[in-house]
């Protein structure tokens, strides 16, 4: 609860601030708080993904983007009323959708009746992977995971190309090499 309040405060700060560098740092803080919430909810794998992607990779990518653009956010040209309306309607729909969900951790929920018992009982025999989540992701849904990986790989390459391509050609090589090594840091 406290964490969610802090997240809301950080979000308001992100919306209000105009200095994009500060916004990037606040985004990193938001990711860490979100990962803490995920740990509270016992979703450790999601927390790990959130921390590594949100606080690690995307911070660095955003910094690389900031290198190419300005530091300052321009004033929006339109009033924010229509986006606010859309956001409120969407949030209302989502909250309305959560009313029908079974209670959190309910073993008798519908989603736990379909294939989950099969996975839990047979996964070690069928795949000989000790962790059930890993067996589902890597064996039962192997092609799905492969497709996801391809998508993410393509996106990573595209982002790297975009961030690299806009340099002027007259720039000395050492500078470009430095920037490139800076971008490569998170992968290491």
């Amino acid at each position, binding site marked *: 609860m406290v964490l969610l309040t802090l997240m809301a405060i950080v979000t308001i700060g992100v919306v*209000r601030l*105009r200095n994009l560098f500060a916004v990037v740092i606040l985004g990193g803080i938001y990711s860490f708080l979100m990962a803490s919430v995920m740990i509270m909810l016992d979703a450790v794998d999601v927390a790990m993904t959130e921390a590594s992607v949100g606080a690690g990779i995307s911070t660095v990518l955003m910094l690389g983007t900031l290198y190419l653009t300005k530091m300052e956010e321009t004033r929006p040209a339109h009033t924010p009323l229509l986006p606010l309306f859309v956001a409120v309607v969407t949030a209302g729909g989502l909250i309305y959708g959560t009313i029908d969900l079974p209670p959190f951790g309910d073993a008798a929920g519908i989603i736990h009746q379909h294939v989950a018992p099969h996975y839990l009982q047979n996964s070690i025999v069928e795949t000989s992977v000790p962790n059930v989540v890993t067996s589902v992701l890597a064996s039962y849904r192997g092609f799905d995971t492969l497709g996801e990986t391809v998508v993410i790989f393509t996106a990573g390459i595209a982002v790297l190309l975009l961030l690299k391509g806009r340099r002027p050609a007259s720039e000395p090589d050492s500078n470009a090499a430095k920037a490139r090594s800076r971008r490569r840091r998170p992968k290491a």
Partner: protein
Amino acid sequence: MSDQILTIVSWLFLGLGSFFYLVGAFGLFRMPDVFTRMHAVSVSDTLGVGFLITGMAIETGWSLNTARLIIILAIMLYSGPIATHALAQAALHAGVKPKLADNRLKKSRRISATREIAGSSNIQAKSSAPTKSRSRTARKSSSATRGKGRGQSSKR
């Protein structure tokens, strides 16, 4: 018997760790300057984390988790000084001057002579102005002090 002693010791360590962690956080909250705040955070990064992890390790006993705790402690003890050093270096490089005791008088005089916007950065940490205007004046004042800081350092 020894279990009880271990439990009491780990309670003690956890309490001390919480205390130092809170002290560091209050320092981060209350200190007037980037560098003094860094100093405060180092308290919670070394003493707070160290005591907390030691308390947890005592509670766990010898197991794999102890090894994990020790790895975490080692990483944080190594990375804390590196991060602090890089932060201080970057701050100095960008022209943020530490607030010195004799610097404050000169600074206030200089500011009142040149630009009054920069003066608000001294009070800024304590005032509760709305966030937007605060960040804007902070930016202006930091760019203003940057130019002046260079001249001052060459004078020294």
